[in-house]
């Protein structure tokens, strides 16, 4: 870096003009000052940039993977997930299921928050109350009727009303707060959009994790410093981490190429080649746990935004299967996703369900598809509108365009309506009355477990969304609902997987949705650094190293 700063004077050195001389000396003065203020060579600073913001530092304000990841470097849960998303001990050393209705957690001893107070059972109980208080976006982390009991300073028991084998599945992002710190700093209430004042915890952090937050300007810059008193042995070699938002794609890529940042996400598909061919940068790709799929309205008696009147073609499984078989998923992979997606037969990534690999997509077959449509009574196809966000998922609008072109081959005419996500969800979610006939959605189950998918995407719902809030198409099969109920309480893993398998088989056979693919993660990193890319797309830099 230092060498580079000396260079600017040269191009301007030619002219005898006073102004350029001024400019030159200004630049020189600038670079000298920069050298003087530069930190000692031993300190390692890691800089990273993301398209979105790190908004509030309150860990219960927004349930979103980037925020969870950034705060996961500062705060910790009772459990953690390792590099392969396996649940490992976090602030709890170990735990046991005493009986299906009682879980006992043994807290790690000698852990201290950044402000020096020790971490104890009282903090766990405080965090339990706070995470389900008004304004918390993480209420689903704990069952509403669960009771927490302190056994001693380092043992906590949770008493359940119904058995729950995945009780702790999302506890890696249920971050533990210090009771005394929150009370002292007037931060017991969760920072919410309805509050007129910003509380202390929205701007400051006090966790037990690998880093502490030195300064935070929401939407601009956040500076993390290494926590020298972390209870765990650090894998990273970083002293300081600086996060900045860079919204513009071109600028974000430029910042990586010029060496101003070490990590960017996302990499626009068109710039992937440039980043991987540049010797100073690398492209890191991998399958994300997020599945992209299409919803078909199977609830209304007459399809909206269609030329079919008086009936709903999507109620007929033959029509749904016809559309499924008309989609050439390999072409979408090759042309739209440039080879980076993983075609999927399920609504959950195969890596998240042990038997996910047993499902195969219905084959791509235009002739079979046409035949199915004719049998269902639509030999000449029909017309329907496809709703699509254009700024939410990787190449979302392009996927919809490709789908429209493929369905045109079986005479299903698509009127594509691609809009920004704020408008898309306003229309397609419960609050908008599920005002869509055919739509594209992506889903990562927060718990990384199939039950979440069966409930949110395939549970029978009413018009308000109670039962299956993200089931845009209103698919309903009481058998699937019954299986989901069993899955929720079945504690035998093998039996549970069998039940999940049965439920997914029904969804597959009845073509409840049109699964497309798992989209890919695409990180651009400097060749000097090594990082861990996890399929849930949380960036945890306590595993990062920089030369």
């Amino acid at each position, binding site marked *: 870096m230092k060498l580079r700063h000396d260079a600017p004077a040269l191009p301007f050195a030619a002219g005898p003009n006073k102004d350029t001389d001024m400019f030159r000396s200004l630049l020189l003065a600038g670079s000298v000052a920069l050298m003087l203020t530069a930190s000692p060579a031993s300190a390692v600073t890691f800089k990273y940039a993301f398209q979105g913001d790190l*908004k509030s530092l309150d860990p219960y304000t927004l349930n979103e993977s980037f925020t969870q990841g950034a705060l996961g470097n500062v705060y910790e849960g009772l459990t953690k997930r390792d590099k392969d998303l396996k649940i490992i001990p976090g602030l709890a050393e170990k735990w046991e299921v005493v009986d299906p209705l009682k879980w006992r957690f043994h807290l790690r001893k000698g852990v201290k928050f950044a402000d020096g107070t020790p971490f104890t059972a009282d903090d766990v109980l405080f965090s339990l109350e706070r995470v389900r208080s008004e304004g918390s976006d993480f*209420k689903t982390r704990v069952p509403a009727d669960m009771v927490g009991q302190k056994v001693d300073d380092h043992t906590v028991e949770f008493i359940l009303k119904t058995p729950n084998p995945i009780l702790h599945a999302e506890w890696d992002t249920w971050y533990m707060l210090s009771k005394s710190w929150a009370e002292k700093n007037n931060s017991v209430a969760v920072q919410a959009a*309805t509050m007129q004042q910003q509380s202390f915890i929205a701007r400051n952090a006090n966790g037990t994790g690998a880093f502490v937050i030195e300064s935070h*300007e929401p939407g601009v810059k956040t500076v993390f410093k290494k926590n020298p008193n972390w209870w765990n042995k650090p894998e990273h070699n970083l002293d300081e981490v600086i996060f900045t938002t*860079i919204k513009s794609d071109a*600028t974000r890529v430029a910042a990586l190429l010029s*060496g101003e940042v070490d990590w960017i996400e996302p990499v626009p598909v068109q710039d992937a080649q440039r980043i991987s061919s540049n010797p100073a940068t690398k492209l890191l790709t991998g399958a994300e746990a997020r599945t992209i799929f299409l919803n078909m309205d199977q609830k209304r008696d007459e399809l909206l935004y269609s030329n079919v009147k008086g009936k709903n073609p999507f109620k007929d499984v033959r029509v749904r299967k016809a559309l499924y078989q008309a989609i050439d998923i390999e072409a979408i992979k090759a042309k739209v996703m440039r080879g980076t997606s993983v075609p999927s037969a399920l609504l959950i990534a195969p890596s998240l369900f042990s038997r996910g690999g047993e499902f195969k997509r219905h084959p791509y077959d235009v002739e079979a598809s046409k035949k199915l449509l004719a049998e269902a009574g639509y030999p000449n196809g029909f017309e329907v509108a496809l709703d699509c966000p254009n700024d939410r998922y990787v190449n979302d609008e392009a996927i919809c365009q490709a789908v429209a072109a493929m369905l045109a081959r079986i005479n299903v005419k698509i009127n594509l309506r691609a809009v920004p996500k704020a*408008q898309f969800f306003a229309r397609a979610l419960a609050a*908008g009355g599920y005002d869509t006939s055919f739509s594209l959605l992506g*889903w990562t189950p927060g718990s990384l477990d199939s039950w979440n998918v069966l409930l949110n995407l395939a549970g029978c719902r009413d018009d308000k969304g109670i039962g299956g809030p993200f089931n845009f198409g209103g698919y309903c099969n009481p058998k699937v609902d019954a299986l989901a109920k069993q899955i929720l309480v079945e504690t035998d893993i093998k039996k549970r997987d069998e039940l999940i398998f049965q439920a997914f088989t029904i969804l597959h056979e009845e073509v409840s949705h049109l699964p497309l693919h798992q989209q890919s993660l695409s990180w651009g990193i400097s060749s000097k650094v090594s990082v861990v890319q996890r399929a849930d797309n949380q960036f945890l830099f306590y595993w990062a190293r920089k030369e």
Partner: protein
Amino acid sequence: MLAFAIRRLFEAVLVMLAVALISFALFRFVGDPINQIVGQDTSIADRERLREALGLNDSVLVQFVRFVWNALHFNFGVSYQFKQPVIDLMLERLPATLELSFMAAVFAIAVGLPMGVYTGIHRDSWISKVFLTVSLIGISLPTFLIGILLIYVFAVQLGLLSSFGRGETVQLGFWRTGLLTASGLKAIILPAITLGLFQMTLVTRLVRSEMLEVMRTDFIKFARARGLPDRAINFGHALKNTLVPVITIIGLQIGAIVAFSIITETVFQWPGMGLLFIQSVTFADVPVMAAYLCLIALFFVFINLVVDLLYYAVDPRLRLDRTAAAH
């Protein structure tokens, strides 16, 4: 004078109300904020409760009246995305935008004026032609393209200047400045050029045509006949006489610089108000959008008011007419 000012102020209030009403009518089309505020696991009941608490179930008119009433008390609500009072957020971002606009204006004048004078005096020299071609590029290329080109050349290829952000900043009271650190000064160069390029070309062309005009007048010929040195004629007499329209235009353009900094701020991730506004649009963050639009409207209204009052002060004819009419 007083009556004139009061009438203007009254008109200004009407303009502000109109802007607020129009922007409120538009907000219905940016989408539903609720899904942006909460994560995917939030229950439908919780979403409804939040909608009710934020008053989003009320009619547009009720929301508008509430907004105006609160705005009169300097309360612009809480940003949906940052969960922070909008007024604080704006005050945090204002210095960045004003510093950028100021530097862009300085660049436009410091470069545009000499270029205009030169091309006005040496209208046929090849340097003039180069200057005019450059100014043609500045006037015809869109801002975001210029920004990206500058980033590509000076940040990626040459590695001289930074491609994003403000660099290191220093907090002076409520004002966070980037003009006191080396990296801050380095960071402002590219965005200031990008933002000020259009105004620079405007100044160049304006000064040039005014200079061409003035150089033909009798008093310049007379000055030459007196044997005054070129320098005194060009700068002491000719330039001085071109400055009145130039100052007017620059004054009016300052409003435009502040308002159009949106694009430059987005390209360079400059943490000012324009960037905040763009982020708010994506998130349907209505309180921030409303406050921003009102603030920009206020800015324009204020500048126009000042210009009007200045005219009144400067131009004796306006005053004479008023007195005549009064009698």
